[in-house]
């Protein structure tokens, strides 16, 4: 039972991080219809910017997280302007391939600047807490709390603010959005910025629990794509549900079936779902 609860905590924390990364990806897909393969690169960069802010600038964990999030957000918006916007009318494989180019560029650039070795980011609060016999690290609690806060904030932004509504409006009807006077170019850039922000925040949150490396974005990339396909591409609730489905499958599959094959289980689930329901679990109407 304790092991079970232990795993449950791990799964929730992991699911929170997956959700943050996947939400940005699904928003971008909804608004721009671009599967942004560079998204994992933004996540990875977020971890490195956090690391650099901590070690280079010597600032605290929270300011470092914020700085990294802002930096990556700006870069993502730039990417939209310079690459994806010009490619909006190109054949659909073009933006995908361009995004792959960006992913590798980011990876190589990070490796050039910070080297190929693993980096470690110290946890802001060390130690563990015991909750009802279950031992949890503070960092996991921070991850869970922070991801809840960010998801709630994002939800508030999308549902309660007019700017947030423009994002939803554009993903539901692009031309309708133009007709009410929404500048769809600006919304596109904004959505990319938000996706970068979320990815970097997620990276900064999870970084203290793992080793930071230039290739960490690749695996995450594949997982969040699996998540948004599972949830239905462009669907916000789908991304959250998909994130937890994957984290639970990985965590419990890893614990009770085989740790070696934890990653395989996630992708196998994806393949299985798609084989049965090619449109994902939450089909969007557009």
């Amino acid at each position, binding site marked *: 039972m304790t092991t079970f609860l232990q795993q449950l905590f791990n799964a929730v924390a992991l699911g929170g991080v997956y959700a943050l990364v996947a939400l940005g990806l699904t928003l971008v897909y909804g608004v721009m219809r671009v599967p942004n393969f560079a998204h994992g690169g933004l996540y990875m960069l977020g971890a490195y910017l956090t690391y650099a802010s901590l070690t280079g600038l010597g600032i605290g964990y929270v300011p470092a997280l914020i700085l990294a999030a802002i930096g990556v957000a700006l870069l993502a918006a730039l990417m939209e302007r310079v690459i994806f916007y010009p490619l909006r009318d*190109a*054949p659909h494989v*073009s933006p*995908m391939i361009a995004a*792959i180019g*960006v992913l*590798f*560029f980011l990876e190589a650039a990070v490796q050039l600047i910070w080297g190929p070795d693993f980096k470690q980011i110290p946890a802001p609060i060390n130690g563990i807490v015991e909750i009802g016999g279950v031992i949890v690290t503070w960092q996991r609690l921070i991850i869970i709390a922070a991801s809840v806060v960010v998801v709630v904030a994002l939800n508030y932004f999308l549902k309660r603010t007019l700017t947030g509504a423009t994002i939803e409006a554009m993903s539901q009807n692009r031309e309708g959005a133009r007709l009410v006077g929404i500048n769809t170019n600006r919304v596109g850039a904004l959505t990319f910025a938000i996706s970068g922000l979320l990815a970097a925040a997620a990276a900064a949150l999870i970084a203290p629990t793992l080793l930071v490396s230039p290739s960490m974005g690749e695996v995450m990339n594949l997982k969040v794509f699996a998540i948004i396909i599972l949830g239905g*591409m462009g669907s916000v609730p789908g991304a959250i549900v998909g994130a937890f489905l994957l984290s639970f499958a990985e965590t419990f599959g890893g614990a009770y079936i085989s740790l070696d094959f934890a990653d395989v289980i996630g992708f196998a689930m994806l393949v299985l779902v798609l084989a049965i329901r090619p449109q994902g679990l939450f089909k969007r109407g557009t």
Partner: protein
Amino acid sequence: MKGWMWWVAVFALAALVPLFGPSGYVLDIGVNIMIYAILAYGLNVLLGYTGQLPLAHAGFFGIGAYATGILTLKLGWSFWLAWPVAVAISALAGLLLGLVAFRTKGDTFAIFTLGVGVIIMLVINKWDALTGGNDGLNGIMPPAGLEALSKSVGLKLSGGFYYLALISLALTVIAVARARGSVFGRSLIAIRGGDDLARSAGIDVYSHKLRAMMLSTAIAGFAGGLYATYLGFLGSAATGPIQTFTILLYLLVGGLGTLAGPLLGPALMYTLAQNLKGLQDYQYIVFGPLLVLLIMFAPQGIAGLWMRLTARRTPPPAAPPTQKEASRAGS
């Protein structure tokens, strides 16, 4: 000069290379380029001709390579038997993937196949008992008789491998050219223009896509078998998405949907990568932006640019060759 005469000339020149007694290094680059080229030809069948972006390509390369390795090492088969069987296994695996994957289209197809690509790599990486896991497979032998044959004509084994790769490449080019120039191949081009249009033209889109997938993955497995016997050892890294993306880059540079592109791209990019020695680990600092610029400004690659230039220089042709198609998938 007619199209096929260029090819004969290129292959004749390439065949002369070992006779001048080049270093093993030069021959090694040649073999690597040819393996990559074969792989790119396979990708081109699906991406360039059929308009589908499969991101599990290196996985099938891995299936061919590992099948060859396992059959020769663990079952003691001769390479000459294991290789064609490995090709068949890759084609069959491609069929299985296609049966499911072609229920999806466009972005979802790409991402779905990417997921499968990762699974293939992970399974190879984790299935220690069969694949050697992280340690990989070691000690795969060169093809039986290749060394003796090479010696008998005064070459080293590396020269023998060079010719083996060259013949394999020639076979691939012939196969792909024939497929493209056929009734079947025309239907693939039709599918590239859009499923609905192809359907209404009376083409059984699903079955054509499946066969294109099998040809594509068979060629990938063919390259994989060659790779296994040439290198002698296998690791799972060469079977993952990174490898797929690398081939994609090579193909784009060379020219998507062209017959020369899958050879030109690897020839140029692999050589370039070798010469950017200091940059080896960071080659994507250059290649990443290059990929972006290519897809934005020259989506037809070198072969496409060449065709556009020559087309402009010559007076308006009365009947341009039918193979001169643009690479864009939209219609």
